[in-house]
């Protein structure tokens, strides 16, 4: 199945923000998030998956984005990561700065789960399904992530 220009634009408009936010949440780096963004949509063209529903399509985008981000993080050496610090987004002002710093400090493995739970509004079971993980693993990741964020934000400034 070939996509028309209009379909491609619609897909980008519909799923682009979700893909980009997840990539940013996971990678915390604009340049890598942009690479991921393009790669995910190219994979759609290359693999041409068939979707049963919009929810299924969104789950596909989330899974591919999360997997690609994970692969990208594996590839980066320590040196590259150090260099990328320079590329990171400037800290947001005020309360957001503290949260942003806390998210930067959060281990990468927890970021996707946190994002899908708190931003996309998925349940832990849904996250487990989308990311092909065990639901109990998702729950424990979420619990640990919350604790770390809370610890980082100076003993509960934010109600995590």
């Amino acid at each position, binding site marked *: 199945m070939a996509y028309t220009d209009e379909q491609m634009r619609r897909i980008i408009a519909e799923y682009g923000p979700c893909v*980009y*936010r997840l990539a940013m*949440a996971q990678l915390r780096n604009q340049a890598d998030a*942009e690479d991921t*963004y*393009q790669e995910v*949509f*190219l994979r759609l063209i290359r693999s041409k998956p068939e979707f049963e529903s919009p929810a299924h399509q969104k789950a596909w985008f989330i899974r591919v984005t999360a997997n690609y981000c994970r692969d990208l993080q594996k590839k980066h050496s320590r040196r590259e990561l150090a260099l990328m610090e320079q590329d990171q987004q400037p800290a947001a002002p005020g309360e957001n700065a503290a*949260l942003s710093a806390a998210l930067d400090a959060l281990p990468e493995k927890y970021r996707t789960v946190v994002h899908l739970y708190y931003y996309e509004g998925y349940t832990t079971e849904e996250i487990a399904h989308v990311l092909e993980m065990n639901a109990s693993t998702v729950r424990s990741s979420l619990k640990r992530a919350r604790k770390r964020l809370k610890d980082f934000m100076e003993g509960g400034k934010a109600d995590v």
Partner: protein
Amino acid sequence: MFEEQYRKLNQEVKPSDALNEETFALMKEAQDHRAAMPPKPLRWKPAVLIPAAGTVAAVLVATILLAFWMSDRNVNKEAFDAVGNLDEIISDEEEPSQSEGQEQTENQPDTEPEDAESSGTSVDENQSFSGSSAPSDDDGKTSENPTKDPAEPPAEPETDEPDQSMAADPRNPDIINDESTTTYTTIRAFLNALAKKETPGYGTNYYNARDLIIVPSKLPEQTRFRHFHLDNKTGKYSYSYIFTANGKEYFLDIEVDAETPKTLRDLNVQKQLLAEEEILTGKKGNQLFYLFGQNDEVTVTLTEYLSSTALTEDEVATLLAQFELERCSLANYLIDITF
């Protein structure tokens, strides 16, 4: 609440319009590229398994026929023993049946048509790009074809010939791999590898490489594309061409030492700088030197093909004057470079 704060923080995060436009363009290009791609050549597993399965099937049929004939003969023997005409009947039957069986099994190992078919796709491409071939490329190919029978029909050696000269890998005759270098014998193979993101040197940034690649903008007449080498570790690449002039064959090697931008941002920065990019050139003996921008160096070396004879100054000056390099997008340049 953490949730509200997190949502607020992320609501501001959106892809830029420029990124969306660029992504749309890439998707469109990828889709067009896929639509234009030739059917995939037979990979090594089917290439081996299909003839093997055919062979096994044919042997089974031959065995069944033989068993059937044997059992038939036993029945006949019993039947004719009774009348005393057995010897005559068997001697009439046996000879044609055996020879028929032999014929059948001789024809069984019919692996070559498949091989010829898979190499056939490369023949067209290689013929159009490579022309003559270096003897050093002959290694190994024949040893990978142990079933090749000298008494085979003449059509098959003809189709195998370019493969022997170009490819060590029967799985994809357009690509030669060793530990550190991948050699693409056609630009098409290289582009396909880029499109499939299988080019190790560029990793995920293959589009970055395509957008900034340094290729010849002008070549001597009757130049034939020879090889595209890619260093898997460094991403450095080199081209080679062969061309004929003054009744002699020349070899033109273009070695590019350029750094591929790692991120889209770096790529965009470099692309913006392209308009103002300064290209310095120098010449020494049979070599041309280019410096694109501040870091990307290119060395062009002209030699006589398969000869160690030194070229004269006039020869070098005349031939290299017919050569120029530029930096451009390979996707747009495909038609020009693959003549």
